[in-house]
């Protein structure tokens, strides 16, 4: 990878240890993805906020880094482990709360916007088409590339952080308009968001950097986010195109058989103790949807609903949250279904969710069994 004189001197440590570390990361990933050069970005979105996921090593690293590091571009942040407003209601240990507070403060010290959301594309104004950004958080990267007309690598937590600190990113193939060699045809009749999530999970497994999805006539926001979340969980694919794909591309069908295989892989229980919605977090449109689906009905079990703080505030003003709380929902901000310590395997054996991403991490990281159902099925089965 070609570096400018200034970039070379930063890599040699002439601009301090933080810049040296940041450029070391950028050069490693630039080599890994065959980038020719670094290009400027306008927005970075960081993952690695939840103490559950980054642990003591991550907390100490960020604490040390924040002594002198400052972000150079607009930088937003993924969810953390809990919502400070309601943390006292949950049985979390003091150490967790303190370490989470330290992580939060480290990011704020570096100048990061404390958005604590995995759907930055829904809560911030989008820059103009084609803008180079650097999004960690796999669903956000895929959404940015495929739907929001932005350009990003499917960044890692460290590569997005290095981009935030330098304002630069490797110019990789995902940033250049390519044409995928694989087309997957959606062949499920009337697919709901769960089917789209499974399609994403399947596509992530079989696709390389990018993939074309055909056979999709329309997809609402819930389905689209579910597709992005599923795809980000299973593979390295960072972009999808909707359409027929190029003529000589390999073609694979996503039929009932493939869907059943994914379902059997991720569904580990036929019932659940609680319901969790929001991985990725719910946006205002989905909260509105949920509130109208819940008219006159109430959950018979605990239902945790995860949304960004700004969405919760808007939903409160409009009155959607009244409807949700009346129906028995606990509304949480700043955290999400995926990897939250609030879903504790010491208290809960199994969770009902419509999130493919949530299902994978609840099972594999939190050790909690999962019953996968579409949102409409959850409302039908779990409310009266």
């Amino acid at each position, binding site marked *: 990878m070609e570096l400018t004189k200034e970039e070379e001197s930063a890599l040699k440590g002439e601009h301090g240890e933080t810049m040296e570390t940041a450029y070391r990361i950028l050069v490693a990933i630039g080599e890994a993805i065959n980038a020719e050069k670094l290009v400027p970005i306008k927005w970075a979105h960081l993952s690695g906020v939840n103490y559950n996921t980054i642990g003591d090593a991550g907390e100490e690293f960020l604490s040390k880094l924040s002594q002198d590091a400052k972000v150079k571009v607009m930088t937003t942040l993924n969810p953390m482990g809990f919502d400070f407003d309601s943390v006292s209601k949950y049985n979390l240990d003091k150490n967790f709360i303190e370490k989470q507070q330290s992580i939060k403060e480290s990011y704020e010290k570096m100048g990061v916007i404390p958005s604590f959301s995995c759907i930055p594309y829904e809560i911030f104004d989008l820059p103009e088409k084609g803008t180079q950004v650097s999004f960690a958080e796999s669903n956000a990267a895929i959404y940015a590339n495929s739907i929001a007309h932005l350009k990003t690598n499917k960044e*890692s*937590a*460290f590569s997005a952080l290095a981009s935030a600190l330098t304002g630069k990113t490797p110019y990789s193939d995902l940033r250049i308009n390519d044409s995928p060699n694989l087309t997957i045809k959606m062949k499920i009749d009337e697919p709901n968001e769960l089917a789209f999530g499974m399609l994403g999970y399947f596509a992530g497994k079989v696709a390389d950097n990018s993939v074309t999805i055909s056979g999709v006539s329309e997809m609402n926001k819930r389905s689209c986010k579910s597709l992005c979340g599923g795809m980000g969980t299973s593979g390295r694919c960072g972009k999808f195109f909707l359409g027929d794909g190029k003529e000589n591309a390999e073609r694979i069908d996503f039929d009932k058989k493939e869907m059943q295989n994914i379902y059997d892989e991720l569904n580990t229980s036929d019932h659940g103790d609680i319901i969790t919605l929001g991985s990725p977090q719910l946006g205002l449109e989905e909260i509105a949807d949920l509130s109208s689906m819940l008219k006159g009905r109430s959950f018979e079990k605990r239902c945790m609903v995860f949304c960004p703080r700004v969405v919760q505030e808007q939903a409160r003003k409009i009155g959607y949250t009244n409807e949700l709380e009346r129906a028995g929902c606990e509304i949480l901000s700043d955290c999400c279904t995926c990897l939250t310590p609030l879903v504790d395997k010491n208290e809960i054996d199994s969770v009902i969710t419509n999130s493919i991403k949530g299902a994978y991490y609840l099972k594999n990281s939190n050790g909690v069994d999962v019953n996968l159902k579409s949102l409409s099925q959850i409302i039908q089965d779990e409310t009266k």
Partner: protein
Amino acid sequence: MTFKVIVKGKASGKIMKTDIPINFLGAVDKKTGIIHDTKHDLVGKSIKDSILVFPYGVGSSVGAYTIYSLKSSKSAPLAMICAKADLSVASGCALANIPMVIATEFDKLEDGKEITLDTESDKLIIFRE
């Protein structure tokens, strides 16, 4: 066999190989290095002190922190060899100083073989009987 060096370094040890990609956040215990994804063929094994050979990393971007945590808790592989690069593994290894290369002939790397990986040597990987 040719290699591309992503993170420089030297390591000697036994190859632990899988043909299944690894989701570091979802599948690896960051303190012990034990794979706990029951769907993975390395389930129950620790990647600690191995020369870990796997196709590529998948899943959450936070997997890079898992690699850094493994190094901090002295449970990291000695080196990683992949068939394809992904940003989580590359950046995690870069920050944790774990040597990492991409191998063109991934299939020729055998599980259990003792090797020395040295990015300064001409041959890069030396197989030992």
